[in-house]
């Protein structure tokens, strides 16, 4: 993985010093709340319902064991002993004290971490495929490109006061596991007709109140032009994006208003002047960055590893929580943070320490955070899977539910977020408690359930196979269901099922939807395929039958 050199280190150290001084000036009354706000946001610090919330960047979801231990230590020292992994592969702490945030940032800096640009109207953490570098369907490793973008965007002088936040995702595989169609810029690594590597560039995707599937801005961008072209897009956005209404300020609205042809013309015009500037990537710079992501020392003997027969529970976990690896004898292992005891994505300091130790023992000391709020140990020998499973199970981290209903994603909602209309965590826990029968869950199979506590859609409900959105109806919590959303390939928004249901009926509504699926599915058809085949109507009929 990418390890900071002295230059990177100096930047994060200076950032800590800068923020310490800003915080001091704010607490001393020299800086107004209004002036401090964008500064704290650009360091990931929100003022929430109960306390500040600090969001720490995990670039493209990649962590070393040492960094994960530091996250655990911060949870213990400055928070209440846990952290929350977010849908953008970051971690959030819900209970830090404002005056101690500079100390947290100083601790993070000792392991090459920071909270730079995890909020605010700037380029946010770049997100990517949690199986980067190990997926068998990979065209090219997205991580070097993510890191090049991370560095280019860090403290970018021109783009720190954009009309609104700006999110970029990079996917390097045949299958899009990074939801590139739902980002301000989505980059897909592709091979051109002559076999050359490049990017297909999507722009204007996003969720929130105005969900949009991104559109192709450029079919093929040479890799050398990654930064100059991205900068050209950002300049057009910074100049022309709306600033009069924050709900209309994302780039998707600009692209929609101008039309993709005109938007593209403006970008090309800017780019013409930048293409051969110092932003052009040399083959040497690309090679040097790639070297940081060279494969670990896989053991060729692993190819002969066999899976032990160790009972149905282990077999089920292997089937559900591990994925194919491009190297023979290895698997990528998902660590479920959806065990139902805590909010989806929450991990205690002890759990983080355990995963860090297991990463060192079994997976070359690296951990990834997925955008579904789980963790991944990406390089585990097949012969070691059983030992790893036992260790994870001992820590309550082997729930075999990856990709199933209870592996739902959910935003913090009313429990923490000041924008929420409705609770999401307690509802998620109720769903997990109701559907805890493993045989039933496995029978239902692959199903992405996503829930947000308001239309800002942090829980990605628009793109859930089943989406649940919390709404406020005269002060009561109601929940709007959507069916058929897809985040990856064949990206589409879910369709509304019908009127929102009260909180007490959410679990039953879900049960009715699953009932219809079980009755209607053909052979081993997945839920999403059934919905696409039969449409929303049969589900609607069942759910609202009583009202009729």
């Amino acid at each position, binding site marked *: 993985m990418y390890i900071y050199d002295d230059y990177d280190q100096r*930047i994060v150290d*200076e950032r800590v010093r800068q923020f310490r001084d800003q915080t001091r000036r704010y607490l001393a009354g020299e800086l107004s709340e209004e002036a401090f706000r964008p500064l704290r946001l650009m360091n990931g610090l929100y003022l929430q319902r109960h306390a500040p919330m600090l969001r720490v960047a995990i670039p493209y979801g990649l962590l070393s064991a040492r960094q994960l231990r530091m996250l655990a230590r911060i949870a213990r020292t400055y928070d209440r002993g846990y952290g929350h992994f977010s849908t953008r592969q970051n971690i959030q702490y819900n209970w830090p004290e404002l005056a101690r945030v500079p100390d947290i940032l100083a601790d993070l800096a000792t392991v090459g971490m920071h909270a730079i640009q995890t909020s605010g109207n700037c380029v946010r953490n770049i997100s990517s495929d949690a199986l980067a570098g190990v997926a068998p369907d990979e065209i090219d490793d997205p991580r070097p490109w993510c890191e090049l973008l991370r560095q280019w965007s860090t403290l970018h002088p021109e783009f720190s006061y954009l009309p609104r936040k700006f999110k970029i995702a990079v996917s390097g595989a045949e299958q899009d596991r990074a939801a590139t169609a739902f980002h301000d810029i989505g980059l897909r690594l592709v091979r051109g007709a002559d076999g050359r590597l490049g990017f297909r560039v999507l722009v204007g995707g996003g969720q929130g109140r105005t969900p949009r599937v991104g559109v192709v801005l450029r079919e093929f961008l040479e890799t050398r032009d990654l*930064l100059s072209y991205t900068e050209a897009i950002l300049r057009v956005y910074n100049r022309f994006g709306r*600033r009069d209404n924050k709900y209309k300020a994302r780039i998707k609205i600009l692209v929609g208003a101008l039309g993709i042809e005109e938007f593209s013309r403006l970008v090309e015009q800017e780019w013409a002047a930048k293409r051969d500037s110092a932003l052009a990537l*040399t083959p040497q710079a690309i090679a040097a960055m790639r070297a940081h992501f060279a494969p670990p020392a896989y053991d060729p003997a692993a190819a002969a590893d066999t899976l032990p027969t160790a009972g149905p529970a282990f077999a089920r976990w292997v089937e559900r929580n591990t994925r194919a690896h491009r190297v023979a004898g290895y698997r990528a292992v998902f660590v479920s943070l959806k065990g139902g005891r805590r909010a989806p994505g929450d991990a205690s300091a002890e759990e983080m320490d355990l995963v860090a130790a297991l990463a060192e023992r079994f997976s070359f000391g690296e951990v990834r955070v997925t955008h579904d709020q789980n963790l991944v140990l990406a390089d585990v020998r097949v012969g070691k899977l059983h030992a790893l499973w036992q260790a994870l199970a001992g820590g309550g981290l082997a729930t075999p539910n990856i990709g199933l209903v209870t592996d739902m994603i959910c935003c913090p909602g009313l429990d923490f977020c000041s924008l929420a209309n409705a609770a999401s965590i307690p509802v998620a826990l109720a769903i997990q408690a109701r559907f805890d029968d493993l045989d039933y869950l496995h029978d239902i199979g692959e199903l992405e359930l996503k829930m947000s506590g308001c239309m800002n859609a942090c829980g990605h409900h628009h793109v859930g196979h089943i989406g649940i959105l919390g709404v406020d109806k005269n002060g009561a919590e109601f929940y709007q269901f959507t069916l058929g959303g897809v985040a990856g390939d064949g990206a589409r928004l879910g369709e509304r099922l019908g009127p929102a249901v009260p909180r007490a009926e959410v679990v039953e509504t879900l049960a009715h939807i699953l009932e219809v699926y079980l009755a209607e599915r053909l052979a081993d058809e997945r839920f999403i395929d059934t919905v696409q085949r039969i449409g929303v109507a049969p589900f609607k009929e069942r759910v609202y039958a009583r009202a009729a």
Partner: protein
Amino acid sequence: MSGVGAMRIVRDGRVIDDPWRTVGAEDVLPGGAIIVPLERRAEALGSGHGADALGVMLPGSADASLLDGLLGTLPLVAIHFEGAGDGRGYSLARTLREQGFAGELRACGAFGRDQMFYLARCGFNAFAPDGDVDPAALLAGLDDFSLVYQPAADQRDPIGALRAARAGFPLAR
């Protein structure tokens, strides 16, 4: 504004007495070096002002093309930041520098010491914010970081170039 002593501003890394006077849309045009809204430039030239003592003020939202043909003549362009969160002036400044403007590029309006580093990197060399901002604090803001990741309008070598030099491989271009 007229009649009082010169404003203290930051220019080229030093605190100086501002030799320019900023004139609003309605003000009577005084003599000496003045900064006028772009729309009043013709009027000022017509009333006998020399072009080398005549700067123009633009809002951050303005398009750089408004200055087409003028960049070689103007001694000073001032860009006014309407609100702290309005970052259009950063792009406008960089664009003017990219188009070869070599005169004084002055930031005015809503910003403070915490924006100085970014403003300077976008090509501003003079800073006259609204309100009661200590020029010495503004100066300090110029040094928030000693390294940069990306090329911009200033002359700093980005980290990528430093790494290339260390490793002995060529730079872009």
